[in-house]
C-alpha cells in the first residue's frame, strides 16, 4: 500500500507528464530526425507522437484502474515474485539507458552552446550528482519540484516559441513527402528510443491521488507536450531544411532561436530562456534516475540511497566510455530501435492488463468477502430468529 501522503496529485501528474513528453524530444530529436528525413521528419514525428499519445492513454487508464498498490506488488501478486523481479530488472535497464541517452544529450547541449572549452567528463559529474540526489528522493518531491518549476518552464517554452514563431519563415517547411511513407516509417521507427517516455509512469502507478480530472489532465499534458515538440520541429525544419548539413548536435537547438533573435548586439536572451527550459530536461533526467532506482529497489534488497549512488556511478562510467554523444545516439538507433518500440507499446499494455486484472481480483475478493459477510449475517440473523422463536415459544409456554 502506498502511503496516502506519499502520493502525487493530479496537478503534479500533469506537470510530470508534460515534462516527460517534452524534455528529451525537444533537446535532440528534431535535429536527429531532420538530418535523416529532412522535411518529412515532421510527418514521422507526428506519427510517432500519435502512437505515444495512445500509449499515454493506456498508462492513464492503468493509473485510474490501479488499486492503491505499487505496480511491483501487483505484478508479484499476479505473476509471482520471480517474474516480477525479472520484469522490473528489464524496466530498470531500459530506464537507465534512457537516462544515459538523456545525460549525454544534456552534456552535449551545454558543451556546444555555453561552455565550449570544458571537458565533457567533468560535465558529467554534476549531472550524475543531480541524478543521485533526485534518485534517492521521493516521488512526491519530484512531483512537487516539477509542479513548482512548471510555470517557469512553460513561460520559457512559450517565450522561445514566440521568438521562433516571429522570426522563422514557416513556408520553408514545405514540401512534404519527398522521402516516401516507407522511408518515413522506417527512419522514425529507428528513433523509437527517443519516444516511449510515458512508459516510465509505471513507477507512479498506485501513487496518484485520482480525481475525475486525472485522465483529462494527463491527456492535455501529453497533447501539449506533443504540440510543443511538433512546433519546435516545424521551426527547425523551416530554418534548416535545405542546409541540414549545418546542423550540429546541441548547437542548433538554440540556433533557431538565435536566428530568430537576429540582433546579437543586445545579448543572447534566448540562451537564458533555454537554460530555464533545460530545467525540464534535468527534472526528466532525475525522474529516470528515480524510476531506475525504484525498479532496482524492488529487485535488489539494497537501500535506496546505495542504489542511487550506484546508478550515479554507473551513469558516470558509461558517459565516460561514451565520450561522443553521436556514438551514443548511433548505438541507440542501431541496437535499441526495436526493443525501445516494443517496450514503448508493451509497458502501457502490460500495465493496463495487470491493473485491470488486479482490479477484477479485488472486486472478486470484495464480492467474496461481502458474500461471506452476507452469509455470516444471514446465519446470525437465522440464529437470532431461532432465538427469537425459541423465546416466543418460551413465552408461549
Amino acid at each position: 500500500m502506498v502511503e496516502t501522503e506519499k502520493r502525487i496529485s493530479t496537478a503534479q501528474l500533469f506537470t510530470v507528464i508534460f515534462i516527460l513528453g517534452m524534455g528529451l524530444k525537444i533537446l535532440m530529436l528534431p535535429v536527429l530526425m531532420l538530418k535523416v528525413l529532412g522535411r518529412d521528419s515532421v510527418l514521422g514525428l507526428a506519427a510517432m507522437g500519435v502512437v505515444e499519445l495512445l500509449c499515454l492513454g493506456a498508462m492513464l487508464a492503468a493509473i485510474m484502474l490501479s488499486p492503491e498498490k505499487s505496480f511491483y506488488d501487483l505484478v508479484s501478486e499476479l505473476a509471482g515474485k520471480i517474474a516480477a523481479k525479472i520484469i522490473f530488472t528489464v524496466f530498470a535497464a531500459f530506464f537507465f539507458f534512457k537516462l544515459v541517452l538523456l545525460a549525454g544529450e544534456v552534456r552535449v547541449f551545454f558543451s556546444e552552446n555555453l561552455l565550449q572549452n570544458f571537458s565533457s567528463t567533468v560535465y558529467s559529474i554534476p549531472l550524475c550528482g543531480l541524478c543521485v540526489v533526485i534518485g534517492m528522493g521521493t516521488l512526491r518531491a519530484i512531483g512537487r519540484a516539477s509542479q513548482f518549476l512548471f510555470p517557469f518552464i512553460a513561460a520559457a517554452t512559450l517565450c522561445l516559441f514566440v521568438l521562433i514563431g516571429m522570426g522563422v519563415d514557416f513556408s520553408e517547411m514545405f514540401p512534404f513527402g519527398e522521402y516516401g511513407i516507407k522511408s518515413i516509417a522506417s527512419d522514425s521507427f529507428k528513433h523509437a528510443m527517443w519516444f516511449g517516455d510515458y512508459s516510465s509512469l509505471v513507477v507512479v502507478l498506485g501513487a496518484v491521488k485520482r480525481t475525475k480530472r486525472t485522465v483529462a489532465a494527463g491527456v492535455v499534458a501529453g497533447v501539449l507536450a506533443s504540440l510543443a515538440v511538433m512546433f519546435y520541429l516545424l521551426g527547425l525544419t523551416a530554418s534548416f531544411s535545405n542546409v541540414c548539413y549545418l546542423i550540429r548536435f546541441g548547437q542548433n537547438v538554440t540556433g533557431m532561436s538565435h536566428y530568430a533573435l537576429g540582433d546579437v548586439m543586445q545579448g543572447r536572451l534566448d540562451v537564458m530562456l533555454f537554460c530555464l527550459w533545460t530545467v525540464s530536461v534535468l527534472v526528466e533526467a532525475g525522474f529516470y534516475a528515480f524510476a531506475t532506482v525504484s525498479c532496482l529497489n524492488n529487485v535488489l534488497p539494497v537501500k535506496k540511497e546505495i542504489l542511487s549512488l550506484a546508478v550515479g556511478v554507473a551513469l558516470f562510467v558509461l558517459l565516460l566510455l561514451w565520450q561522443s554523444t553521436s556514438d551514443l545516439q548511433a548505438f541507440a538507433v542501431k541496437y535499441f530501435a526495436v526493443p525501445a518500440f516494443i517496450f514503448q507499446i508493451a509497458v502501457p499494455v502490460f500495465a493496463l492488463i495487470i491493473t485491470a486484472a488486479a482490479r477484477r481480483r479485488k472486486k472478486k475478493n470484495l464480492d467474496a468477502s461481502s458474500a461471506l459477510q452476507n452469509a455470516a449475517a444471514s446465519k446470525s440473523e437465522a440464529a437470532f430468529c431461532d432465538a427469537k422463536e425459541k423465546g416466543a415459544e418460551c413465552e408461549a409456554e
Partner: protein
Amino acid sequence: MKRSKKILIYKLSCFLFAIVLLMLPQRSLPQSDIQVLATVLGIDGTNGDVMVSAQLAVPVAQTGDGKASTVAKATGGSISEALENLEIGMGRRVNFGHLSTVAAGKGMLLSDIKEFVSYLMSSGKVGPGAYLVYCAQSTASDFIEQAQKMGESSDAEVGNFIAFNKSGNHVTTATALKFLQTLHSTSGAACLPCVQLEDENSDSEQGDTSVGEGRGGGSDSQEQGEENGSQTSEKRKSEQEGKEAEKSGGENAQNEEQSGDEKESGGSSAKNSQDENGDSGSGKASNGKKSSGGNGGGEKKKLVAADSIAVYGGDKEEPTVLNTLATRGVVWQDTHSNYGLVELRNVLIDGQTVPSVSARLAGKSVKKSVKVINGENVLTYKIKVKLKLDDSHLCVNPDFFGILKDKLEKEFESVIRNNLAFAVQTSKETGIDFLGIRDRFHKFCRKGAHNFDLTAVVVHIEPKVIIQT
C-alpha cells in the same frame, strides 16, 4: 536506514558535488585580459588565399564604453587558418559571441562564400542570425576599416546600421542562415545587400549632404538628396562604365529610362537608413568625416548602404549586382521588410507637379500563389501595402479624399508593379532565380515544378495600396 545515516549520505553527496565543482577546469578560466570581442568580420579572397579582417572591441582600463576597438587582419590558406592566424596575431582569443555582421569582399565567388559561411556557421563562430553583406566596390577589409573609423564608440556601428535597416527601412537584409537556406533551395539563388564606400571628396565638392549626413526628413533635404542622388549616380556611372546598374540614388533617371512616359518614380529609402536615426545619423557622419580626415586626405571615403543587392546563383560563380529598380522589386516581395520610407517623384497633383510625395510603410502583406493554368506556370503576387503620408499637408487638401487619395494609391500601385515586373524580367534575363520562383513551385505546385522554365513563367502582380490618414 537510520536518519543519521541518511544525513551522512546526503552530506557526502553534497561534499562530492562541491569537490566536483572545484575540480572543474579552473585553470582555463577565461579572463577579459586575454579576450577580444569580434563584432564585424570581413572575408576577402578565394580559397587558398583568404584574408580575414575583424572589427574587434578590446577592453581598455577606463570607465564607460569608450573607444576601445581596432581592426585586425590576417591571411591564411583557408578561412580556419586565417582565423587562427588572426588570434595568433592579436595574441588573444577572439570571442565571436557578438559577431553581428559578416562582409564578403568584392567579387567573392559563389563556391567560396558558400564554403566560408558554412564553415563559420558550423564552427559556431557565426550565429545563424548574423547579417551578411556584400561590399560592392571594395574589399571587405577596406569596408571594415572604414566602418571602424565611422563611429566614435565604433564597437557596433556596422551591426547597428544593418539591424536598423532591417527593422526600420524598406530594404532587404540577409542573415547567414537565410542566405545558405535560399542558396540551397531549388531556386539555387540568394541575395546579399550591398554596402559600399563612397568617395567623400567628390560629394563634398558637389556640396552633397549625402546619405550618411542626414538626408531625408524634410522636403528640402529630400529634394537635395534627389539631386545628389542623381549626381552621385551619374558620377558613378562614369566610373563604372558598362556596369549594369546604378547604385545609390539615381531613381529618377533610372525610372524614366525604364518606365517611359510614367512620371512617377518610387523606391525605398535604403540609403536613408542613417537619416532615420536622427541625431545618431548626424553623429556618425561627423565621425566618418573625422576619421577620413585622419586617413591622410588622399582617399576620403564613407560608408553607405547601397540600394542594390548582389545575387548569387544561376550558372555564374561571380555575384550579379542588381540595379536599383530590380532591387526595389525584390524588396517589395520580401515579406520581412515591412517598414520604411517610399516616395513618388514628380507627381502631377491638382494640376501641379509635386517633386516628391513620401510615405511611410505602415504594413505590408505579400501573398504569392502559384498554379498551372493552360499548361503555363503562373505566379501571382498579391501585395497589400498600407502607407502613411509623410506630407500631411496633402491631406488638408479638400479634394484629398475624393480624387487625390485614389490617384496617389494608383501611382504607388503602379510603382510596385513596375518595380517587381522589372525584377522578374531581370531574373529571367540573367537566369538567376533570386525571387525564388522555382522554389515556390517546388513547394506549392508540384505539377508546375516538373517542367519548370523560369523564362516561361507568367507573373501577375496585383498590388493594393491603402493610404492611411
